[in-house]
C-alpha cells in the first residue's frame, strides 16, 4: 500500500531540490537529492507509488523543472496540495507528474497514512476516508492524457490545445 508524506505550506523548489544539487539533467540523480536538506530521510524511505500531501503554495519559487523531475524520479506517484504555485503546477503536468488540488484532505490526514489515488477521477482514499480532488483544466487534462507536453505537441501539435481553448 502506498503511504503519504505530509509537508507544510510554501514548500519551495529550493526545498525540493536545492541549488547546489540541480546542476544536472539526470533524473535519477535529482531523485536521490529530493528534499535532501529539508527532509534528509525522504529519498531513502520513499517507495514507488507513494504520494506527497502539501499545504498551500506547493512548489513556490524558482521555475526549475528539476523540482517536479526530482519528485517523480524519487518514486512519487502524485502530489496533492491545498494549492500550487503556477509554474510548478504547469511544469509537473508537462513532465507527467500528476498534481491534484484538494483542500479538505490536508487537515484530515497524517504523515505515513496509507493512501490510494485514482489519477483520472481525482478520487483519493486515505485509510477509508474519501476525498475528491479538483479536476484539471482542459489543457492540463489533454497533456495528462497524452503523457507529457512533448508527447502531446509531437503527436498533435498546437491543434490539440487550440481545440480545447
Amino acid at each position: 500500500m502506498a503511504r503519504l508524506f505530509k509537508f507544510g505550506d510554501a514548500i519551495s523548489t529550493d526545498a525540493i531540490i536545492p541549488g547546489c544539487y540541480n546542476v544536472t539533467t539526470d533524473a535519477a540523480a535529482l531523485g536521490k537529492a529530493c528534499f535532501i536538506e529539508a527532509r534528509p530521510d525522504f529519498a531513502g524511505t520513499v517507495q514507488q507509488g507513494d504520494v506527497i500531501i502539501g499545504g498551500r503554495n506547493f512548489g513556490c519559487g524558482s521555475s526549475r523543472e528539476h523540482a517536479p523531475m526530482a519528485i517523480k524520479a524519487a518514486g512519487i506517484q502524485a502530489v496533492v496540495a491545498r494549492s500550487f504555485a503556477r509554474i510548478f503546477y504547469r511544469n509537473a503536468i508537462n513532465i507527467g507528474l500528476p498534481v491534484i488540488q484538494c483542500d479538505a484532505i490536508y487537515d484530515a490526514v497524517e504523515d505515513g497514512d496509507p493512501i490510494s489515488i485514482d489519477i483520472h477521477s481525482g478520487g483519493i482514499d486515505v485509510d477509508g476516508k474519501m476525498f475528491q480532488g479538483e479536476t484539471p483544466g482542459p489543457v492540463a487534462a489533454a497533456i495528462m492524457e497524452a503523457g507529457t507536453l512533448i508527447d502531446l505537441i509531437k503527436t498533435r501539435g498546437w491543434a490539440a490545445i487550440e481545440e480545447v481553448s
Partner: protein
Amino acid sequence: MGTLTEEIFTRRLGREVHAGEIVVAPVDYAMAHDVTGPLAIEAFRKLGVPLWDPQRVIMVFDHILPANTVASAGLHKVVRDFADEFGVTHVFQEGICHQLMVEKGFIRPGGIVVGADSHSTTYGALGCFSAGFGSTDIAVTFATGKTWFRVPETIRINLRGALPPGIFPKDLALKVIRMLGAEGANYLAVEWGGEAVEAMSVDERLTLANLTVDFGGKAGLCEPDEHTRAYLGEAEVYDLHPIAPVYRSLIEVDAQTLEPQIACPPAIDNVQDLSAVAGTELDEVFVGSCANGRIEDLAIVAGYFKGRQVSPRTRTIVVPASKQIYMEALARGYIQTFMEAGALVMNAGCGPCLGRQHGVLGPGERALSTSNRNYAGRMGSAQAEIYLANPAVAAASALAGVITDPRGLN
C-alpha cells in the same frame, strides 16, 4: 478594451481577447539560462524538429558563471553545443539574463516574451507581457515560436503619493507582498500604477516587475510612458493603456507613510518594519541580483560606503547585474569605493543569490540580501537565515554588521 494584459493579447492576436480565455500566442523571444537551458535543450531535441528562429532564442550564462564545478561546466557545454549546432548567436555571458534581455533591446512595450526563469516577469516594467516557464514549455516555444496562456485576470496596485527619502521600490514591493501574501497574485497579472510608479525610472520599475512573481504573479506590468520612451527611444514605444479595464481587485498603498520593509526568514511574506529586526547580527551582506543589482542601486550603496569601512565581522559581496552596469560603476568610481570600503566585488551574474557559487552560507549563518528569495536553503545551508531589504538598508547594515536603518546615516 481591457487591462494592459488584455490589450496586449488583443493586439497580438488581432481579435478581442478577455481574461479567462485560453490562447495559443506567438512570442517575440524565448530565453533560457545555464541551469534551465540544458533541460530545455533535451526536451527540444525530443521533438526532433528544427529551431523556430535562431535569432529569437536567447541563451545566457549567469547562474553559475564562470563554471565552478565539472558538473556546471558540463551544463555550459550542452548550451554551447546547442548554440553552435542550431546557429543561435544571442549567447551571453555578461550578466543576469533578465537585465540583459532589457539592455540588449529584446523587450518592447506590447511584446510577449517567455523565459525559462521565474523572474521573467521583470520585462513588464517596459509594458511587455512576460512570464516565467519551465524548461519543457520553453522547449516547445523553441520549436514553434508559440506557447499557450490562460489570459490572466489582473490585480491593479495603485501606489499613492511620493516615496519619502530613504524608501525605495523594494519597500513598496515588500509592503504589497506583506499585504497580499506569497500567493496573493497566483495565476494573476499585476498592474503597477499610481503616482509613485509614474515618478519612477525604468530601473526602479524593473524592481517592482521583478518581485511580482514572488507573490505569485504571472506578469507584472507598468504602462509605458515618457520614462519608457526616454529609455527605449521614441520609435519603440506605442500607446498602450488599459481601456475601461475590469480588475479582479484594486489595491491602494500609501507610499508616503512607508517604513523600510524587511522580508524575514523563512518566507518572502514574513515582512516586518525594519525597526522590528534592527540590531540583528549579520555574517554576510549581498548587494546585487535581478531585483537590485542595477546602477541606481550601486549608486545608493556607493553613497553610504564612501569614506567608510564595512564591518570586519560581516563579509560584504557586491555583484553588478551586468557588464554594462559594472563598467558604468567603474567609470563613476563606485567599484573603487566598494573595494576601499572592504567589500568583495564579483563578476556580473547571479552571484550568491541562489547558493550555487560564491558567497554560500553555512549552517547558523545569517545574511541580508538585496535579492528576492529567502527560502530556507536558498543561499546555501537550510540552517542559514536570509533577510531581504533595499540597497540602502544593505549598505548601512554592511557598515554596522547588524541590521541598521540607513536613514540616520548620510
